[in-house]
């Protein structure tokens, strides 16, 4: 009885749309009309669609770059702001503030910073590191890299809080014992802190990977909806939106793409959890 509200919401807004997407992926449904069963045609089309493979490559690359950074950097940040020093709350709030900012606003701010006449390029030129402005927003590879940095920058605060909670559970006795044995701060970090927060690191890695696979807003906002020249910085969710939305949207094909993303994500998650299990003594 108490479970009913949560169960109803989960079924209506999560399970049912998922089943609907699964069914639609075997049809030629469009935004207007269609809907006939076409078997595996949409999946066959995926295999021959260069945009799908480009999006898959970019999405996997995104995950490969972003996840290690999101696992390590927030941990270092958490260690930095963990001590109860005067005004440390201020710094914690500052680091957390990007998390509560809208992704669109964050994207726009970074777009201004990274424009050819933006602050970053002006700084690089003033320091004579580059002669000409770098095409951060008009070179597909640089654009994708900049989007990754924005994702990491925005996610730092969130995972920092997760790590702060985990750090609170690391035994002080172990730290003191290590200190007595002559271990310095770096040694204690590797030998006491990291093992103590290892399960949290796995959790952060999994959440970060799933978030990276769903990346959309960064790429969309920072490229003015184009995913860079020729759409070459496209990600899977960007491509799903492009294919499925609008009055000419191919809903069936976009659903097949969504299912491919689902399989990719769950495949990675299973592998990741198995790796964690193997690591756990």
């Amino acid at each position, binding site marked *: 009885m108490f479970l009913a509200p949560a169960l109803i919401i*989960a079924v209506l*807004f*999560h*399970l049912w*749309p*998922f089943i*609907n*997407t699964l069914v*639609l992926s075997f049809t030629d*449904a*469009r*935004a*207007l*009309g*269609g*809907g006939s069963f076409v078997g595996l045609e949409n999946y066959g089309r995926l295999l021959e669609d260069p945009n799908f493979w480009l999006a898959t490559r970019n999405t996997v690359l995104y995950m490969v770059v972003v996840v290690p950074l999101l696992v390590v950097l927030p941990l270092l940040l958490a260690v930095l702001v963990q001590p109860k020093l005067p005004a440390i709350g201020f710094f914690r709030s500052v680091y957390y503030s990007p998390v509560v900012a809208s992704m669109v606003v964050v994207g726009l701010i970074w777009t201004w910073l990274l*424009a*050819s006449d933006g602050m970053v390029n002006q700084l690089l030129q003033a320091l004579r590191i580059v002669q000409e*402005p770098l*095409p951060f*927003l*008009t070179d597909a590879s640089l654009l994708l890299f900049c989007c990754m940095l924005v994702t990491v920058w925005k996610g730092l605060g969130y995972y920092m809080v997760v790590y702060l909670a985990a750090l609170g559970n690391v035994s002080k006795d172990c730290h003191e014992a290590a200190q007595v044995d002559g271990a310095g701060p770096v040694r204690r970090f590797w030998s006491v802190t990291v093992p103590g927060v290892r399960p949290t690191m796995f959790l952060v890695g999994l959440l970060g990977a*799933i978030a990276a696979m*769903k990346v959309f807003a960064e790429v969309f906002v920072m*490229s*003015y*909806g*184009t995913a*860079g*020249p*020729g*759409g070459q910085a496209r990600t899977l*969710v960007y491509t*799903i939106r*492009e*294919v*499925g*939305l*609008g*009055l*000419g*949207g191919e*809903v*069936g094909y*976009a*659903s097949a793409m*969504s299912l491919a*993303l*689902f399989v990719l*994500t*769950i495949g990675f*998650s*299973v592998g990741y*959890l198995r790796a964690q299990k193997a690591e756990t003594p």
Partner: protein
Amino acid sequence: MTTRSWRSGLALLAVTTLTLTACGLDSGESDDTAEPAESAAAEEITGKITFSTLQLKPTFTEYIDGVIDDFEAEYPGTEVEWIDIPFQGAQEKIATDASAGTLPDVINLNPNFAQPLESEGLFVDLDTAVPELREDYVAGAWDAFQVPSQEGSFGFPWYLTSEVTMYNTDEFEAAGLDPETPPATFDELYASATTISESSDGEVYGMHPALENRFMLDLAKEGVPVLADDGTTWTFNTPEAVEHVEKLAELYQDGVFPPDSLTEDHAKETEAYQAGQVALFPSGPNFLTIIEENAPEIAEATGVGPQITGASDAANMSVMGLMVPTSSENQATALKFAEFMTNAENQLAFSKIVTIFPSVKDALADPYFTDDSDGTVESKARRVSAEQLDGAQNLLPVQYDDRVKAIVVGKVQLAMTGDLSAQEALDQAVEEANAVSGN
């Protein structure tokens, strides 16, 4: 598999499902049979109708409410419920409404939004329903709601705009160009832009390409047959189009366009002109008001010339229309309301609030659009734009939807960066656009 493994597997499935269901899309199946409502034949103007517009609230709330009040007073027993849809996401809402058979009785769309719905036979054919009204409207505007290889016209033309060439006279003078003689052709436009860029030594760019807004339109102006006559096959990879793309690539690489303009849109072009970063700004005269509000100094220096035309010598106009779905249960009242909203008196009043143009010939003949004796740039822009409307057409093919646009613009971007030749870019764009359009 052990029970624990099953549990872990199910939990993982649930978590991943929760995180990914946002990517799922609702059914696109349509059960709308598009049957004309029985009341279509009824002539009685009464009852309640719904009327949807595209992003007119809150700026024009007073005007629209006033017209609705006048209609309800003139036709006692009628009631109009007004719904305003933000432009962003409008297509998705309309598609959902169309699939569910719940389109409003009168719906405000542009020709590109309307075309997929018209092709499905979802709107009343006005050539059949109200043939006597055709002559009242500007011909090109009425024809904008036709579908290639399909009989009929499906929308009451509402407000129009027709691009003019705005330019910064200070930058013209500084570059040694005549500020009283704006460019009139593409060759003159690009030559002026190049002169300004070169003379300012990189401080000011000649112009912004705004590819998503202008590329296909410019090809049509250049006389490129962008679509085959049957309206189903894209054919814009002609030698003239290749030449046009090569010119764009040359201008981009020579620094006549801003470096970031490659992926930027019309909104960024407007910002760049207001900031004094670009000197030429071909756009609708309605943007003059925005420039005046945001950058009075730039507005002060702005001159206005006629729309840039190419080999076809045709001028373009943008059209907004009002459609009546065949699923409307009160078609008679809906048709009468759409006619009322677009009549000369109401359109003239609307045009005096914002720089748009009426689609009814009588209203367009008003001195408000022909007299620029006050010497202001606004009245000149109004006169120039209104003069163009007589022979103007909606040159942008109605089949040029967001997906085709993304393909075309993407390939042109690659040609501009030198990653593809102009011919390769256009050949690939035609092939992919035809695949997306189902050809």
